[in-house]
């Protein structure tokens, strides 16, 4: 069973939520609606065997709408296939339902995503900052967060 057939099955089952399918350098990316992300992840894990969540992160496309994407990297330990799932998130309400009930590993990934990107996860069991100090203001990986930190003179030297 190839990733293509997984995508076809996904389209058949969740026809209303699959927004886009892209192929780049042999990797498949599926963009889905955020309302159905937990249902789709549960389906991919239970029915299609994507039992391993390699990675989860947020990307800030500042100036575009929707502004954020939450990216899930799924892996199937049996067939060694990868699938990338992306969920668009609006700037107005940067919230997605947690998938930590599907893969327990998502717990820390989502905490990191909240900490650094400012996307919060509904029903998350323990949504605290993880890398930055507890009392930190702002989310450093957002594109409108200056490299030097807020309220400081920009770096005068050469960066690149």
């Amino acid at each position, binding site marked *: 069973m190839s990733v293509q057939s997984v995508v076809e099955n996904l389209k058949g089952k969740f026809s209303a939520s699959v927004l886009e399918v892209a192929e780049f350098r042999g990797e498949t990316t599926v963009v889905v609606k955020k309302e159905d992300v937990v249902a789709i992840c549960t389906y991919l894990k239970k029915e299609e065997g994507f039992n*391993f969540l390699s*990675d989860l992160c947020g*990307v800030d496309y500042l100036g575009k709408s929707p502004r954020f994407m939450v990216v899930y990297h799924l892996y199937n330990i049996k067939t060694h296939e990868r699938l990338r799932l992306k969920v668009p998130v609006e700037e107005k309400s940067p919230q997605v339902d947690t998938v930590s009930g599907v893969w327990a*590993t998502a717990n820390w*990934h989502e905490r990191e995503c909240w900490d650094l990107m400012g996307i919060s996860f509904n029903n998350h069991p323990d949504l605290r900052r993880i890398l*930055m100090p507890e009392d930190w203001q702002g989310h450093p990986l957002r594109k409108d967060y200056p*490299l030097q930190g807020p309220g400081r003179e920009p770096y005068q030297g050469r960066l690149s």
Partner: protein
Amino acid sequence: MATTETMTINMGPQHPSTHGVLRLVLELDGEVVVKAVPHIGFLHRGIEKLSEYRTYHQVLPLTDRLDYLAPMHNNLAYVLAVEKLLGITDLIPERAQVVRVMLAELTRIKSHLVWLACHALDIGAMTVFIYCFRERERIMDIYEKVSGARMTSNYFRVGGLSADLPDGLEKEIRTFAEEMPRHIDTYEGLLTGNKIWQKRIQGVGVISAEDAIDLGVSGPSLRGCGVNWDLRRDNPYSGYENYDFEVSVQEGGDTWARYLVRLKEMRESCKIVRQALDRLQPGPILADAPKICLPPKKDVVNTIEGLIHHFKIISEGFKPEAGEIYQSVENPKGEVGFYIVSDGSAKPYRMKIRPASFINLQALPKMCEGSLIADVVAVIGTLDIVLGEIDR
């Protein structure tokens, strides 16, 4: 009647057996751990943010500083990711690929030596520590000869290698790869049959295969649960499909199983290093992609094209087409991956690192809750974490 209550104590961030700056808040009932909560982030340097402000070539030295016990693996994961993004994976010359594999496997031995040394020391076996560091020093010497640095190698380049191997080094590496299995026999002689060692780690830090997969645990820690999965064999990169090696798997899911897995991995790595030396043929070390790879110094000073390319790559960098890729390698700790989003400019738009230690550490509460406080030390050791990679 006497009443009992639990007590909360703090372990780390300054604690010799937390392997860096890991802080654990332990809730104890007598000597039994009721709850363990890891606190991390003390070493956060914002490498993902910094990389968004640097050209692709300039990001490379930052990756050394992730898992500083296995810098070449981070370099490898990063250069493979950028090569995939550029679509030049097939252009990498054979010699560069073989040298990459050889050094990656030496790095695996080096990283596992530190793991064994510190793990044994934490549990009380001092001698092994000294022996492991003796052998590690020889790999450090090899590192120094190829890259000029002992820790932060920064040796691989997008498109190949920064320099060819120095003369005579192949012989030194071969001698090392042939002697190393005997040294591993020594460590096994000190530990494997040792009743104290066995009693100390058998049945400690048990985790089932289902739980480990659910928690995203990868690498030797997962193979110690009987899961037969190794990226080198299952999603081969850098020509790993051409090497004959066994993936070491153990049932049990305890510290003992993970100990056996890593020891066998060191032996297999010696095998791969020897095979790589046999395959090593003279040839180019950089891909034929002048707009991407820095030209050799003699071309820069002797030819006008070389000078222009050097100037353009240094001042502007190269611009991969817009897109996104994920590439991972089998680091000594587990799956280390780079997710790079390109917007068509000379700098990564977003670079996410999948750190193996960060995710493996998440399994720590599961592995030590309900066990004795002294076993927490064994569990930290067996997870083989590096805080540089956890905190990034």
